[in-house]
């Protein structure tokens, strides 16, 4: 089961955060901002202390949850957490990235690097999460893109 999602821009600012489950810990907005920028720095430090050339954190495994992050070529990081034992989250992250390009980047009112406030993005994100949760918590499997109406923001 998915727990939380957040998106960090290329300078470490939090631009989106969402709890995906009622089991996820409730964080106030200061905690969220701190979490986003701390993750951004940890990502960079992980590359610095690396024993081999590396581009930074991709996954974390802990007692209670796992975290997976996906960094786009433009430096935006999508970070999702799920309960421990959930299979690979790469597929879901990829689909969220697609939603971001379709409903955030193509939105004429969206300014780059600024917080995401796009109704359709949130709507289709909810639908995506629901679809994957119903598929028995097996993200990335089949399904493909949901119904996406073209030309609407």
């Amino acid at each position: 089961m998915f727990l939380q999602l957040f998106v960090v821009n290329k300078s470490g600012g939090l631009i989106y955060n969402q709890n995906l489950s009622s089991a996820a810990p409730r964080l106030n907005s200061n905690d969220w901002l701190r979490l986003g920028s701390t993750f951004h720095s940890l990502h960079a430090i992980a590359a610095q202390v690396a024993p081999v050339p590396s581009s930074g954190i991709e996954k974390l495994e802990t007692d209670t949850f796992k975290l997976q992050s996906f960094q786009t070529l433009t430096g935006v990081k999508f970070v999702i957490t799920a309960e421990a034992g959930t299979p690979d989250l790469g597929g879901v992250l990829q689909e969220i990235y697609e939603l971001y390009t379709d409903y955030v980047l193509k939105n004429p009112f969206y300014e780059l690097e600024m917080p995401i406030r796009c109704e359709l993005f949130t709507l289709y994100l909810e639908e995506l999460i629901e679809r994957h949760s119903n598929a028995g918590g097996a993200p990335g499997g089949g399904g493909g893109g949901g119904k996406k109406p073209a030309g609407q923001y």
Partner: protein
Amino acid sequence: MIYNLYIFNRKGKCLYYREWNRPQNTLENAADDGEEQRLMFGMLYSLKEVVTKMSTDPASAGLHALKTDSYTLHHLETGSGLRFVLNTDNNAGDLRPTLRQLYSGIFVEYVAKHPQFNPVDGSPIRLPAFDSRLEEYLRSLACFKS
């Protein structure tokens, strides 16, 4: 393939560092040679804070592993705050049992029980028996060279 191993005490002093394969060290030429170890501890410290914040059960928020595209960091924190950190490539699998054995089977036997070991002052571990037992154990693992 196993790259390197760190042991930290709970105050962040690096008690032990050993490397077997290390193609890259970005802080090799740092003015102060403890720089790299301190950065590693700093990362673990902040990671713990992040993990505690995001955990569904704040009482149990232990980090097991951190994966990047090229290496995996395996992590074990003991009840006394000691941290064992082992870096490997991404094909090593789950090394939690290995770290536990390293702690309870080797560290406790050869370091904690050694009369010269002082758990308080955080001085580096220099015990030849520990070195050789550790070396022997890690070399016996399937993931050491492959």
